[in-house]
């Protein structure tokens, strides 16, 4: 009789959400992240896709352009995540063309949230967990700034003030980004593009150091990441040559 009502519940037949279900650990074997820099938002990811301890592919694109001003970084079960990205691509373009105006940023964020919520049964059963990062700009607002949003697997969305990460390797990346935001000189949000690109490559190499499911980024073997810059002007992919140049200049290689 310690007065803890919640402790009483399991002793009765009262049905509790989530407790009785045997839910395997979410599969999020990847690393994707986004952070603000001086020129906009850097959004990046490695190329590895895994199935358990098997490396399924080292050439997977996880940063997907949804339209001219929004991106998704996918972490989770590829089958569901890629389908969500494809659905959103068509949803945004269909709206823009049929309604003769771009979909608002809020509506885009909600659209992804809705897809995640619709995926609830697969999420609860453990085989369809998706935990994406979304980055976008309000196209209709001339002063709109790029924004980063991250989601929980059930569809709740949160705006990230400075950075967001998802996937099994994101823990170490988020620690580094937190440290740099707090004590970095300059913090990532004030970094020029070249510096931000090098940081993105280094972050992925750091994640790969501690997470077997993150990989495929080896500047010494000329293997780089997918890095994109989102700004008011739209999306720009940072090509391998540019990543290599930034990397060499930063390391004086």
């Amino acid at each position, binding site marked *: 009789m310690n007065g803890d009502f919640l402790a009483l519940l399991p002793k009765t037949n009262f049905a509790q959400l989530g407790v009785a279900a045997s839910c395997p650990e979410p599969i999020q074997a990847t690393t994707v992240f986004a952070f603000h820099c001086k020129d906009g938002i850097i959004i990046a990811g490695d190329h590895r896709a895994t199935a358990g301890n098997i490396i399924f592919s080292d050439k997977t694109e996880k940063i997907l*352009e949804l339209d001219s001003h929004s991106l998704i970084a996918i972490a989770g079960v590829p089958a569901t995540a890629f389908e969500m990205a*494809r659905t959103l691509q068509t949803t945004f*373009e269909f709206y823009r*063309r049929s309604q*003769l105006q771009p979909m608002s940023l809020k509506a885009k964020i909600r659209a992804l949230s809705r897809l995640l919520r619709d995926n609830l049964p697969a999420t609860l059963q453990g085989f369809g967990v998706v935990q994406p990062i979304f980055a976008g700009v309000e196209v209709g607002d001339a002063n709109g700034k790029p924004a980063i949003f991250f989601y929980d697997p059930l569809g709740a969305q949160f705006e990230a003030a400075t950075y967001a990460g998802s996937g099994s390797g994101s823990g170490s990346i988020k620690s580094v980004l937190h440290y740099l935001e707090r004590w970095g000189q300059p913090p990532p949000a004030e970094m020029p593009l070249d510096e931000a690109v090098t940081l993105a490559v280094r972050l992925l190499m750091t994640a790969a150091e501690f997470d077997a499911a993150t990989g495929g980024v080896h500047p010494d073997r000329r293997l780089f990441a997918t890095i994109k810059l989102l700004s008011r002007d739209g999306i720009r992919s940072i090509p391998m040559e540019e990543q290599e140049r930034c990397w060499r200049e930063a390391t004086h290689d």
Partner: protein
Amino acid sequence: MTEEPYRWLEAIGNRREYIRDQLKGGTPVFALSRPEGILLVGVGQGASKVFEIYDRHGFAALGHPVDIEKIRQAAIEAAHMEGFNRSARDVTLRRLIGFALSTTLKNAFEQIYSPPIIVESIFAEVGDAPEEDVIVRVHFDGNHRYESNGIVVAHTDSKQEEEAAGWLRQQIKQNDSLSRAGSLCLAAWRHLIDGKPFAELQPPSDAVNKVNGKIVEAALLDRKLPGPVHYRPVDLAKFNN
């Protein structure tokens, strides 16, 4: 009444006449296949004549605004469903017109107890090179014609339409700029509105990029635009080339 064949024919004839009469207030639209892409030109109230359909597809039309909207939505829906179920490369004008739009138009035209669709239109699909461009002239009854010479005009009067297209073919040279091509379209537009014969029309010496009291609607299905979307609205007055 219409169960008798000749009555049905009469009803269809009346319907055709009625639609042509309704179309008389419409103003022409143009599609030109150019080295840069396909230029679509119309004159209206802004977002009323020239539209984007899909990644490589555009649409220009004249007629009743509600019916233009109906056809536009039908085309967009069919294109996006196909692009989603298969891929963007599977969305082709030939399939869009042949299997989705022309049958809809023909059925609507022949359902004599339902309101007709009052639209004359041009659909365009940009290819990797001008030879691969597809431009289709689609009529209100579903009848359509694939144009291979790269210059298409849609107007209410078929004779004037042909005359205007012939004049543009004579006037537009291979290396003309988009600005020049647009000027010639607007000169032809004015001439069609005035209902004058094209034999006496001299090409404008200065750039024509405005129509008083109206909005020039122009778009380019830009061949060189990076990314999947090739359609971009253009301002003929701001073309420098």
